[in-house]
């Protein structure tokens, strides 16, 4: 039951129902035309895509309303929820890795390594790619993790 993972019913809840069930495409289109209109509604749905790693839907949905800061927030959601299919899409298409990969992001990344073993090779890719961002303290933490 999808509602058990939500605190309140919102646009993302119904969008997830549309994705996970065989809803007729016209029904889905009518729903989206009415409920996924404002930038805020679209962002709520993108948050859900990033939590659940729905990469096909992420690619299909227009992203004109999403600004750069929101993409960084979405990237953080992906890291925290092991949604690395979307994470690599955001990283390659919508972030400026040299500037956006901050020590805070590296902290979040190291936490995910500690908490889950999934997508380990991708986590190591980000670590190696941005090793220069790590502080001495973070390097010590990294050694502790392994």
């Amino acid at each position, binding site marked *: *039951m*999808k*509602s*058990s993972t*939500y*605190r*309140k*019913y*919102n*646009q993302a*809840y*119904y969008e997830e*129902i*549309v994705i*996970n*069930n065989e*809803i*007729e495409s016209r*029904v*889905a289109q*009518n*729903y989206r035309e*009415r*409920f996924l209109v404002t930038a805020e509604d679209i962002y709520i749905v993108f948050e859900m895509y990033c939590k659940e790693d729905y990469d096909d839907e992420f690619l299909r949905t227009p992203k004109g309303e999403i600004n750069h800061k929101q993409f960084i927030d979405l990237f953080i959601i992906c890291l925290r929820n092991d949604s690395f299919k979307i994470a690599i899409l955001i990283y390659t298409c919508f972030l400026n890795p040299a500037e956006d990969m901050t020590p805070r992001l590296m902290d979040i990344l190291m936490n995910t390594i500690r908490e889950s073993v999934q997508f380990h090779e991708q986590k190591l890719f980000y670590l190696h790619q941005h090793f220069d961002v790590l502080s001495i303290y973070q390097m010590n933490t990294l050694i502790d993790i392994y």
Partner: protein
Amino acid sequence: MAIFYCLFFCIYYRNPDLVEFLRSYVYKTEGYPKIARLLEMIDINGLDRLRTIGEPMNAITYHMVFYQAIDDDLRVVYSSILRQLRMIQLRDADAIHFLTKRDYELIRLTFQKITAKLNLT
């Protein structure tokens, strides 16, 4: 199942006399298990408790009727329950029903509701 919904509206509008009439009718005919269950709930908890929003038994009773009404496509029943309850547990089938019926008014109404976790299917 008409008796089932009659019993629900007896709770909804607080009509103990009609409950007694329906009870004698149900005893004379072969009733559905759900009707017997609803009568049992009325006997144990009383109409007042069952219709008080916030009581645990109210949530269980209303959800039982809500799910049945969605399955039977009775909008009058499920929309009135949806308007009453503040916390509601939608099954995936309920959300699909709202979407396929293009019931955007009720979808908007659910946006104001908090999800509940009940041991009911």
